């Protein structure tokens, strides 16, 4: 049956204020059903306060083979990295 069903990617926000994180994927007939299955498959131990489901086919992904043209040119622009700044103690999580 799951052969005919659509694939969805599941994102869960574990606490208010945090980002939605990708947790996995599942099969469902439609988005509403995917949301319910996401609840059963990925939030069994009360992991979340909010769930997003996205049609996997709607995700446009970069290819690993594109690394060279995509990311390598950024390596020689160190001024884009904030590594030369002294961070005040109070600023955590940078």
């Amino acid at each position, binding site marked *: 049956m799951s052969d005919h069903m659509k694939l969805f990617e599941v994102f869960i926000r574990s606490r208010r204020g945090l980002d939605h994180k990708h947790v996995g994927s599942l*099969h*469902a007939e439609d988005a509403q059903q995917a949301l319910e299955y996401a609840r059963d*498959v990925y939030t069994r131990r009360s992991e979340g306060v909010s769930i997003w489901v996205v049609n996997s086919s709607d995700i446009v992904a970069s290819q690993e083979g594109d690394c060279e043209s995509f990311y390598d040119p950024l390596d020689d622009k160190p001024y884009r990295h904030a590594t030369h700044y002294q961070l005040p103690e109070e600023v955590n999580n940078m």
Partner: protein
Amino acid sequence: MPETRSKDAIKQYAIRLGDDALVLGHRLSEWCSNGPFLEEDLALTNVALDFIGRARMFYSYAAELAADGSTEDTYAYTRDCRDFRNLLINELPRGDFAFSMARQYLVDVYNLAYMEALRRSTDSSLAAIAEKAVKESRYHLRRSRDWMLRLGDGTVESHGRLQRAVDELWGYTPELFAVDALEQELADAGIAVDAASLRPAWEQSVTATLAEATLQRPAGGWEVSGGRRGIHTESLGHMLSELQFMQRAYPGLQW
């Protein structure tokens, strides 16, 4: 009601509701690893766990009232068929997926209304259990109603199976609304739910869903009852032999 009488009556009532939850939970758990696909398998077993958890709460409360050394396990594992007081619809074999979903839907509509009413019980323990159960039942109903629409308004095959299931189950639904002397006494005291009063709303919801799912509402004309008196279908004994096997073979076993 004198206090000892009322305590015993509430205990019996709690056991009835515990039996309903345990038996249906066990039937649902039989889908574990047999679900039509992985996601549904997990969802079904989640629902099964909700019911088994509900059974534990009702049984624990009954054991507390009994105060005779009984525990939740005493009620689940050491009573025979005739001592079980569940409604018959809950014990019917799981059948095919359409049958399990049709049963679930008919019972979920009932359970949600029932637990909403039990929240107003003057017995604070029963009201507290109901409070938790309402949230679960709301989700259960959302799922089972969704499957009614999907299967009923699905393929010729799924429609046919679901219609057959509803027809087979229909005669077991009048029992949901029967009120015997014990429940009447407790209902009058504001403790139990007057199940008969839930019927009109149940009929209305179910009729609307059946129509939306393009299913025929069965004509009725037959009904089976007896669960509340310990008179069961032939299926319960087989189910209990599996559910209770370990405690029967190794009494008092713990792990």
